[in-house]
């Protein structure tokens, strides 16, 4: 019992390791590196254009540090059966939660430091910063994160569960106040305030004084793990991510438009795509992001490259839908051939990627109605959609059916 947390942490690491390995195997990640590279390049190009003393720069920094405090949640690693099996363990659970708190603190602070480093060049460009104030800013970020995590301990305790809503509000509100004092006042004042808040939250939310609220703790941890899995699900198939389902009656017309009448697999795939928030969510988000990006980027070759890249990314996100329903025994019972199933999926893939590609190409017209850009992207998109839905699709499906 005493080393339960370290055992769980080890298992958790193994799981993460397994998924990270899969992530770095996929070409999706190369595309993401490309995107990050473009972002970093854009950031470095943007900074010299900024003058000192912009009215909004301090507000932006305050906002950045408030959001930064929210990143890195309390990882308790509790599991659904725990309330039953660990019911009699009271003092051990306090110890367990202290360990969990330490583990989460290390991870959270690392991310906080990284985020603070990203903001540093911007702050140095727009603000006058002495060495002391730079140190103070880092201290503020670190202490804010620590008190945020202490509050998270309170959130899963029986003592505080009734005030859940207020604590959630405090997790946003207090970092915001500290950040405003830091950037609109002085970093040293911010650091003093952050220290006071930290002392109070350590006093209030010490796990030794709290009793775990199992229902909330399990729910919170489930949600956290779900978002971890959802991240990995961008790159590879995670069995635990089924996604939520929404009725979306307003999309009935779209469903009818995409379904091939009388084809059971088409029927199933279309509804799976439209109603499962997971795949449709990522497709919609990526499409909107792509439209904004190609709308704004004025460099012709970069614009076309980004358009091609986004269409590829979106098409790859559709692939897991192919075996989405394999867990349901009835899909194996239908008297329908595999070729029919593949053809139905391909049909859907063609329709969706063509639609997405069309939207992105239209957006690439940009503010100045750049018809040349539009023409280049249109030709590229048509070639790409054909290649993706014929060659790439064949390869992926072959790989999938070999794995099974």
């Amino acid at each position: 019992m005493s080393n339960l947390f370290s055992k769980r942490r080890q298992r958790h690491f193994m799981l993460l390791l397994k998924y990270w390995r899969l992530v770095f195997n996929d070409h999706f990640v190369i595309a993401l590196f490309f995107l990050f590279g473009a972002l970093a390049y854009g950031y470095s190009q943007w900074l010299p254009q900024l003058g000192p003393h912009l009215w909004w720069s301090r507000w932006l920094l305050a906002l950045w540090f408030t959001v930064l405090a929210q990143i890195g949640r309390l990882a308790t690693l509790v599991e659904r059966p725990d309330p039953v099996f660990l019911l009699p363990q009271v003092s051990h659970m306090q110890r367990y939660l202290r360990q969990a708190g330490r583990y989460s603190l290390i991870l959270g602070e690392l991310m906080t430091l990284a985020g603070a480093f990203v903001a540093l060049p911007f702050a140095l460009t727009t603000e006058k910063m002495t060495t002391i104030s730079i140190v103070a800013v880092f201290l503020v970020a670190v202490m804010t994160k620590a008190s945020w995590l202490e509050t998270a301990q309170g959130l899963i305790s029986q003592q505080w569960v009734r005030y859940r809503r207020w604590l959630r509000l405090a997790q946003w509100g207090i970092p915001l106040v500290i950040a405003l004092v830091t950037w609109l006042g002085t970093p040293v004042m911010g650091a003093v305030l952050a220290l006071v808040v930290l002392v109070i939250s350590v006093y209030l939310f010490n796990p030794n004084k709290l009793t775990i609220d199992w229902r909330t703790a399990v729910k919170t941890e489930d949600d956290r793990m779900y978002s971890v899995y959802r991240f990995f699900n961008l790159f590879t198939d995670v069995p635990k991510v089924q996604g939520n389902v929404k009725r979306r009656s307003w999309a009935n017309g779209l469903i009818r438009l995409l379904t091939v009448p009388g084809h059971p697999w088409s029927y199933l795939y279309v509804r799976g795509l439209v109603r499962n928030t997971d795949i449709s969510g990522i497709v919609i988000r990526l499409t909107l992001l792509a439209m904004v990006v190609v709308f704004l980027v004025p460099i012709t070759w970069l614009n076309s490259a980004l358009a091609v890249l986004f269409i590829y990314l979106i098409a790859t996100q559709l692939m897991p839908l192919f075996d989405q329903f394999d867990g349901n025994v009835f899909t194996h019972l239908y008297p329908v051939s595999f070729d029919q199933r593949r053809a139905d999926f391909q049909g859907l893939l063609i329709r969706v990627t063509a639609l997405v590609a069309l939207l992105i190409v239209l957006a690439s017209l940009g503010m100045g109605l750049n018809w040349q850009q539009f023409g280049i992207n249109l030709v590229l998109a048509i070639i790409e959609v054909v290649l993706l839905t014929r060659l790439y699709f064949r390869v992926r499906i072959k790989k999938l059916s070999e794995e099974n």
Partner: protein
Amino acid sequence: MALEIKNLVGGYSQLPVLKDVSLDVQPGELVGLIGLNGAGKSTTINHVIGILRPFSGEITLNGLNIQNEPEKYKRQIAYVPETPILYDELTLREHLELTMDAYGLDHDQAWQRAHQLLKTFRLDNKLDWFPANFSKGMKQKVMICCAFMTDAKLLIVDEPFYGLDPLAVHDLLGLIEKKKEAGVAVLMSTHVLDTAQRYCDRFVLLADGKVRARGTLDELRKLGDRPDESLDEIYLHLARDGQHE
């Protein structure tokens, strides 16, 4: 001859769970598949519906073999699983429509049958709901509606009574009776022995992956030399004997 299983050896991995199982179900007949937990009932059913591939032996349905003619074979079976299996993404109406598409049924005729079934199980006002959020019993009713709406020649019903209210159990038995009259063969696995005794035409008792006994109730009584015993008692005797071996 509807379903015929000959010398089936099979299971999930290399290790056989079923050892030389033979049984048959004739058209218009309800055969009860009976056995303790882990006796091989569900494994047998998984072989019949084609989820598992036999190591050796043969399964034929009206002369069709699933390996040779999978589509024709599958068109002839309908399955009600032990635990309801539904699509999270589909409404009740869409589950029925998908089944119609999959089995290539005429929608108008199939909907007539479906409406009757839905009415019987008091689901007719829930057509636009997601059955994934229903209670266990109501989910089971959806599975029954989907299976009984088809014109399959063989119905496979795995442990159908769990979670069903008494009225629904009664209705289900009535539906099975009607299917039998229409010449459908029914294979049903169950632990509810007093119901099985009243409704099944024949029984197959499985133990440890083998057929321990088979026949009508009278034949089973003769076999154990226990003329007045109920199926429940015969089964208990056989099961205990099996454990002592």
